[in-house]
């Protein structure tokens, strides 16, 4: 890492010979120098411009540290502090900043500049390591000469069973550009080992999972959410039940980062959906120390424990799940839920909302066991064609949930131990009671899926309430 070079007082101009606009303004430089102190930095050819002597920004430190993205860049520096700047050639701007009223009279009024060498795609990763690598705190691990990079990740126990992207300094620094947070900022204390995880370590996991930098804020917020006492990641990991963090993403940002809320929303094929959830699980594995057979004691597990993350449809007739759970309208937010794999609910004949509600309720009743009630929450992922049946009848979210609840009031006689010839069930004392399948708020309604198909999906939860896991909704940071 190099120190940030200061800019000298007066006018500073950054140019490169390769740039036509720079060559066009070069003849103006002597007259600007006559007017007051001027320092010219040249990025490529040390002899350029021939009109006056320039400082060669050979390692591009000046350009990098002063965020020069375009050449020419003209900056006015007062007492060591940048006062104003313009990029490219704008006759009026250059005249205003230099104070020379007739500057460049024979030039066109405006001409865009060229890309600075310091942001050249072929150089930027190397420059980032050179100038910012020192802010990384993680141990650097050398790979052996004959070691295959991908095999090396497996050999060190860092993967979830699939290949990961090796977290080089270049990749991690590029990932960190996706957030405004400092690399050494502590995000959360990760179960089961309760290790403080920094933004940098989350970025490493995001690289390994295959994220793009713009996904990083979603990963960071999800890590914060699963590491709360309410969500209880320790228990979600340790349980013998097949659950893991299910991440429901809401808001316009899901579209901006290219998430899938449509065809095959819960399936394969979308980078953001797959890698955000995967990065979260890699943090739990590598930072928190939660591994299958270790603290993770799942009897079966489920494939979603690799990654289970999807977006809600932005224009659902029911609004978003996050909004219904208190996120500001239109906000980017995530909801984490300790859930198993999804199961399909088929109803291709109901065109009346009452019929469809009964149909959904009949399937929801079977969650985990038809005789067990109140202990588990569920995410009901309603397909757009099912949602339309309710929306066309004027049913909103509250109405749908209320009607489902009404259909799910179950007679205790069917639920108690021994009923139906099945030992599993509730204690005998509930035989005369009527009990709801779900606790209040226990059905989390989200809308996702392709436009064709009269289907919905249900995602069963783990032990709910304060003894288990509570869903957590959080607004996504930057």
């Amino acid at each position, binding site marked *: 890492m190099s120190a940030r070079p200061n800019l000298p007082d007066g006018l500073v101009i950054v140019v490169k010979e390769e740039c036509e606009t720079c060559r066009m303004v070069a003849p103006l430089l002597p007259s600007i120098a006559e007017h007051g102190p001027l320092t010219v930095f040249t990025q490529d050819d040390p002899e350029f411009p021939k009109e006056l002597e320039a400082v060669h920004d050979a390692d591009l430190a000046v350009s990098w540290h002063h965020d020069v993205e375009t050449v020419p860049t003209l900056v006015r520096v007062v007492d060591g502090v940048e006062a104003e700047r313009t990029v490219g050639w704008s006759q009026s701007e250059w005249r205003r900043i230099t104070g020379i009223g007739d500057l460049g009279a024979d030039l066109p009024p405006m001409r865009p500049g060229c890309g600075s060498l310091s942001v050249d795609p072929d150089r930027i990763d190397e420059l980032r390591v050179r100038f910012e690598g020192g802010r990384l705190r993680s141990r650097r691990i050398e*790979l052996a000469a004959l070691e295959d990079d991908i095999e090396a990740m497996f050999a060190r126990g860092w993967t979830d069973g699939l290949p990961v992207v090796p977290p080089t300094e270049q990749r991690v620094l590029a990932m960190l550009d996706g957030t405004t947070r400092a690399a050494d900022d502590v995000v959360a204390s990760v179960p089961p080992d309760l290790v403080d995880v920094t933004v940098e*370590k989350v970025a490493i996991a995001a690289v390994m999972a295959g994220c793009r930098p713009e996904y990083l804020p979603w990963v960071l917020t999800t890590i914060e959410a699963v590491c709360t006492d309410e969500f209880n990641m*320790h228990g979600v990991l340790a349980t013998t039940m097949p659950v893991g963090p299910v991440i429901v993403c809401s808001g316009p940002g899901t579209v901006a980062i290219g998430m899938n809320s449509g065809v095959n929303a819960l399936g394969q094929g979308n980078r953001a959906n797959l890698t955000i959830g995967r990065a979260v699980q890699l943090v739990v594995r590598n930072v928190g120390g939660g591994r299958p057979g270790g603290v993770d004691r799942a009897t079966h597990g489920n494939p979603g424990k690799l990654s289970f993350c999807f977006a809600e449809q932005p224009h659902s007739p029911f609004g978003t799940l996050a909004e219904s759970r208190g996120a500001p309208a239109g906000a980017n937010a995530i909801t984490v839920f300790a859930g198993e794999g999804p199961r399909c609910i088929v109803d291709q004949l109901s065109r009346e909302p009452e019929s469809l509600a009964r149909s959904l309720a009949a399937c929801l009743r079977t969650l985990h066991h038809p005789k067990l009630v109140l202990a588990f929450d569920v995410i009901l992922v309603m397909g757009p064609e099912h949602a339309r049946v309710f929306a066309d009848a004027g049913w909103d979210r509250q109405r749908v949930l209320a009607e489902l609840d009404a259909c799910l009031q179950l007679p205790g006689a069917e639920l108690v131990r021994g009923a139906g010839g099945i030992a599993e069930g509730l204690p005998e004392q509930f035989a005369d009671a009527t009990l709801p399948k779900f606790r209040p708020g226990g059905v989390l309604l989200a809308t996702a899926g392709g436009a064709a198909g009269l289907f919905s999906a249900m995602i069963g939860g783990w032990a709910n309430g304060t003894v288990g896991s509570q869903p957590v909704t959080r607004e996504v940071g930057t």
Partner: protein
Amino acid sequence: MTSRYVLDPTGERSVAERELLARPETIAGLRVGLLDISKPRGDVFLDRLETMLQEAGAIVQRYRKPTFTKPAPVDLRHEIATQCDVVIEALAD
């Protein structure tokens, strides 16, 4: 071939090796804590253990975690550590 480096994705936490306490010669007169983690029927198992331990001359103290899904609260762990010589934790279903 130039050196290739990656950044360590782990918590970089070195686990301190802790030595096991010496095994007690006898449990007669020892204060034995029985920690019920609140799993169903764990109490059945611990009730039986309590009887057997008392027959062997141990002084038995019972403790209970609020829920099996979360680690024991720090106060409870401290209470057991200060009040007992040994502790038995039961998992049951």
